[in-house]
């Protein structure tokens, strides 16, 4: 076939993207961005029983400049929204956002003057995590799904193509209001 067959044993071939994705997903540094109830579950995820250390990310960075994952854990008030955006802007690229819980994802049960109806009004969100609050297992599931997404993220020109493809796919996806039947 190609160069693969000529290699001596002990060699593996991969792509730069694959290696970079592997490195990126294995060294996520979450920022401590606890807001409300979900923050307690986020801390519980980092603590003994659920042990986020198994995925190499139990160290939450106090400074956004050292972090590349923002877990928005809790309701975002109108007063907090600019702060949240500032913290996001201070994080270096590449960076990801998990919107943890119903309030962060959509405003949840607080449809009123005080709460931002979804943190995606303020920052781009990669993973929406439902629940009030989500269990630590759910947060771990969201994180693992994000790991998968990061692993398969393209770079450079490939990334532009990928973004275009993703956008095209999103435009033809079934709208939520057309999803009928039991959500299972």
């Amino acid at each position, binding site marked *: 076939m190609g160069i693969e067959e000529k290699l001596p044993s002990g060699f593996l071939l991969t792509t730069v993207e694959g290696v970079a994705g592997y490195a990126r997903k294995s060294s996520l540094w979450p920022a*401590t*961005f*606890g*807001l*409300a*109830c979900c*923050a*307690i*579950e986020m*801390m*519980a995820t980092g*603590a*003994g*029983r659920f042990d986020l250390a198994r995925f190499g990310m139990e160290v*939450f960075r*106090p400074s*956004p400049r050292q972090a590349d994952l923002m877990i928005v854990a*809790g*309701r975002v*008030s109108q*007063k*907090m929204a*600019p*702060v*949240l955006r*500032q*913290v996001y802007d201070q994080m270096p690229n590449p960076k990801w956002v998990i919107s943890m819980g119903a309030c962060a994802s959509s405003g949840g*049960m*607080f449809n*009123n*003057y*005080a*709460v931002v109806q979804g943190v995606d009004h303020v920052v781009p969100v990669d993973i929406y995590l439902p629940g*009030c*609050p989500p*269990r630590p297992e759910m947060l771990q599931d969201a994180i693992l799904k994000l790991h998968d997404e990061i692993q398969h993220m393209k770079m450079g020109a490939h990334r532009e193509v990928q973004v275009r493809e993703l956008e095209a796919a999103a435009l033809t996806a079934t709208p939520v209001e057309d999803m009928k039947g039991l959500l299972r």
Partner: protein
Amino acid sequence: MTQTTDKVPTDLPEREYTVQGGGDWQTILPAPEGESERLVVNMGPQHPSTHGVLRLILEIEGESVTQVRCGIGYLHTGIEKNLEYRNWTQGVTFVTRMDYLSNFFNETAYCLGVEKLLGIEDQVPERAQVIRVMLMELNRISSHFVCLATGGLELGALTAMTVGFRDRELILDLFELITGLRMNQAYIRPGGVQQDLPAGAEKKIAETVTLLRKRYKDTHALLVGNAIWMGRTVGVGYQDLAACMALGATGPILRATGLPHDLRKSQPYCGYEDYEFEVATQDTCDAYGRFLIRLAEMEQSLNIVEQCLDKLSPGPVMVADKKIAWPSQLAIGPDGMGNSLEHIRHIMGESMEALIHHFKLVTEGFRVPVGQVYSAVESPRGELGVHMVSDGGTRPYRVHYRDPSFVNLQSVPIQSEGGMISDVVAAVASIDPVMGGCDR
């Protein structure tokens, strides 16, 4: 985000150092004449050591703090306003999310108020009251564990954090067994509790209490008398009785001055007069004293939970009045959730009256006589009061919470001014404010 308020070059474009919403200090407070080296540091609202989204505005001189002010409202959720648009039963779902570490206290304070307005305090079944007390005391332990854990985290004692969260999980397991949820349960309802304890719960609770007693010794051994822990907390955050009285501080802060003020003793509710427990006090007025009080309270709470287990006798868990009792007897159906099939059979096939009650309660809710009431419980952080006003409708006219986190936060300046920056962290951790309760 620091700035000196003097010597700002005027030819530069105006720069904002503080986060938006808080505004720029220049526009709020011009630099006073003749003062130099006045440094104002903004700590929070996004800061790992401020116990949530608390913003501390510190004026510092080197490492010492000359002035502190709290900036709050970063977690304002408008819960009190939302309550005015939900019926009396639905309100529980909102209030449980206020102070998210002491859910059962929020719920109980609210339900006691509604019951007082309805005039049905005496009709609430004994079993429901015992379950309430038991859950509140378990909640007190779990809240104190989080206080220890986050307080430890903020002071750099990471082991305290992992220990605290490890033991808290045991209590959350009980909550999940009894209510189905780890947090934000909405389990205590006006007139009783939402459903009876599941089979085997009492045994599980007894086992957990035994285990917690063992684990409690570990926590005790880890921190009490620990030289580093004492170095950070002894003599820090001093606030004496006069200051507590002037500022309305309650809870461990007040009890650390030696005054055994505890609403469970001074104005008992839910039958607390029938339980034997001691009110823990210290006379050190400092952060270490508050820590010791929390430890002692956890032990007392374990005693109360054991007494609750002895008191539990079979019986209803909701008032008999079918016009108030929420028809929510849940049973696990084939899909893992759902209303009790028995209840559905009853309302759909057997009793027209039951169907009418169900329909009225679920669509509209019950009416509460005109009046206003103040009910208070002793939450882990102090006096948690509810002032509610009814205009006779199916929804509250106004519900206001007197949350201890809000009131106790006033103590930050008196506890920290004149001390070091690091002591501010210890003082705030010892106050244990929960911003969800403070801002609501």
